[in-house]
């Protein structure tokens, strides 16, 4: 049968979501501290 590819090309990549959250939090922290 056809092999299911690990093609997780979603906008909802969990690693990306975490990175995005961390980055936006850091940006916020920098805005408030400056």
């Amino acid at each position, binding site marked *: 049968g056809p092999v299911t590819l690990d093609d*997780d*090309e*979603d*906008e909802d*990549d969990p*690693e*990306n*979501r975490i*990175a*995005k959250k*961390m*980055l*936006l939090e*850091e*940006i916020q922290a*920098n*805005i408030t501290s400056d």
Partner: protein
Amino acid sequence: GGSKKCYQLENEKLFEEFLDLCKKQTGEHPEVVPFLFNRRQRARPTFLASAELRNVLSRVLSRAQTRPTKLYVYINELCTVLKAHSIKRKVPLTP
């Protein structure tokens, strides 16, 4: 060639390319690109001209192009590196 190659121009070019990519894909968060730009401004000039930064930039750029769904992972990676080489480093705690 010279004994020590200066990567400054190459790094600037790669950085601009990465910023351009970010501009197109972080539209929902317009604060990301200025933040990245600011991070670069604060980095040591010696680091901005280093082979190390060139390696990081070419890596995040090519990965961001092949895996745009992980763009923030690469932005974070670049930010972390730039932060580690920034002129003004915040000291977390002083005894």
